[in-house]
């Protein structure tokens, strides 16, 4: 069945997954500084990524039929 990309769960999921990937990537590759600084980006990035993936999961496995 064709997925509805106008489902808001897809939009929110994609946005937070990308933010999560960006933050985790930055925490991993950025020049070393204070450990706590990296931890904040790392932990927050993981939370955003998990939230984004949860939204994408709901969008993918529990679709809502578009009216179109």
């Amino acid at each position, binding site marked *: 069945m064709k997925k509805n990309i106008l489902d808001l769960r897809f*939009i929110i999921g994609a*946005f937070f997954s990308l933010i999560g990937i960006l933050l985790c990537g930055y925490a991993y590759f950025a020049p070393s500084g204070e450990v706590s600084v990296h931890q904040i980006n790392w932990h927050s990035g993981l939370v955003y990524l998990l939230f984004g993936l949860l939204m994408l999961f709901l969008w993918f496995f529990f679709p809502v039929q578009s009216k179109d």
Partner: protein
Amino acid sequence: MKLHVIDYLIIALYFLFVIGIGFLIRRKVKSSQDFLMSGRAIPLWIASLAFISANLGAQEVIGMAASGAKYGIMTSHFYWLGAIPAMLFLGIFMMPFYYGSQARSVPEYLAKRYDEKTRAFNAITFAVMTIFSSGISLYALAKLFEVILGWSFELSIYLAAGIVLIYTFLGGLTSAVYNEVLQFFLIVLGIAPLVYIGLHQAGGWQGVVSRLPDSMTHAWKYVGSAQENPMGVDVWSLALGLGFVLSFGYWCTDFLVVQRAMVAHNMAAAEKTPLIAAFPKMLMPFVVILPGLIAIALMHTPGADYRLPYKPDGVTLDYDMALPSLLAHYYPSGILGVGLTALFASFMSGMAGNVTAFNTVWTYDIYQSYIKPKESDHHYLIMGRVATVFGIVASIATAYLARSFNNIMDFLQLVFGFVNAPLFATFFLGMFWKRTTGHGAFWGLIGGTLAAACTHGLTLAEGKGAWLGANLHSFHSTMGQNFVIAIVAFTSCFVLTAIISLFTKPHPEKQLVGLVYSLTPRPDTGHLRWYRKPVTLAVVVLLLLIILNLIFK
């Protein structure tokens, strides 16, 4: 505050998404109803989050953190007392009339229930107020980003206004609602890590409590006397002014928020929208107020190395900077981009909410009703888009006006406060007393507005008021004064409306079916399981509310 590439990347990604939503929604917009009312097809969870997000503008995010720093946990009354009960009342008692009457807006409900002059008064004042609020939001954004990032006033104004224009012009209300929900998650998830870090630095909630005066960490303990609590209000003006008149006046009659419930996909969803919204709403103080308390606590925490900035006078703390200064101090590059995007989102959410409410009221309640009544739907769709552009341009002009003439803005804000204060009496009487007439409603509104102005003109608080040449009473704070003004305005409007109604001719009863409580069949909820009934939801919300108030009493 210095931004790095990663921060700009996150901000750019957000802009890309909000504009992308506009482009995606555009192909679904085929009629004026699609553009201005989302085709009445918004799912319950989206309508609920948009309902609270439309109110989650800059004033709420920056202002509530500032109030938290200034007044402490008592600020939570703006949620637990000044929002949740009114939201429950809206869902249980008022939505059946708004939705069931098929009115497309709150002013249109007034036209159906009363008459055209009452609608015109409400529509025109509301339209002007939304533009004014949108402009103030824009001005506040530009000022904040000028201070914390060094961005020019023009850059912030045109960037934010341009983005809001693109997505509201393309996708109308649906686009605004979708973005409001995205903004809701961004604001909550963008600020939550700050609360966690701040609490950790301050030694947890117990650490915060130990470093603040007792009056800042109790919501109810000091409300017995206006002199004892930091807000300078007594329990009666708090309960009646904030808890009843102002909160019911805003949450039950302001089209900006009611519109989000009116576009739900059916009556049951419309009723539940404010009830479901009440759950996240009652937890919002932990995201928007707590940072203010944390900021003050951190100033007294050894080794925290954090100071809340002072105002230019060098003496008064700049409470408005509580949240931005915490972001700047504790967020490193990366998450800082998320935090700033959350601030940007809050300003844009407030602006888009106002502009989409304005274009609906302008198109349906002013243009279609009084200027060009019998045009095609396509004509009104185009007018809706023109109104959107006009709303944005007028907001930009208002922002510049606010920059040049701050006193005019204060004055206008005061006047609009007078107009809003009596409104709930008009709706309450209209919905629950079939004898209320259009003449009663209209003159009651005018009388209530004048009573509000006179109360301000005859009382004094923090050097403001008493412009009628006499001072009958001095308040401990402008907040206390505002609560009493609201009570006087409501009472005057209520009494005046009732008296005039008794001497004027009411509508025939058959015209009031669906508009007045006693003449309208109740929605049948007998087929629903007990846990899906709106009343059950409301009871659960009330229980949780009581628990929260007991914890922070």
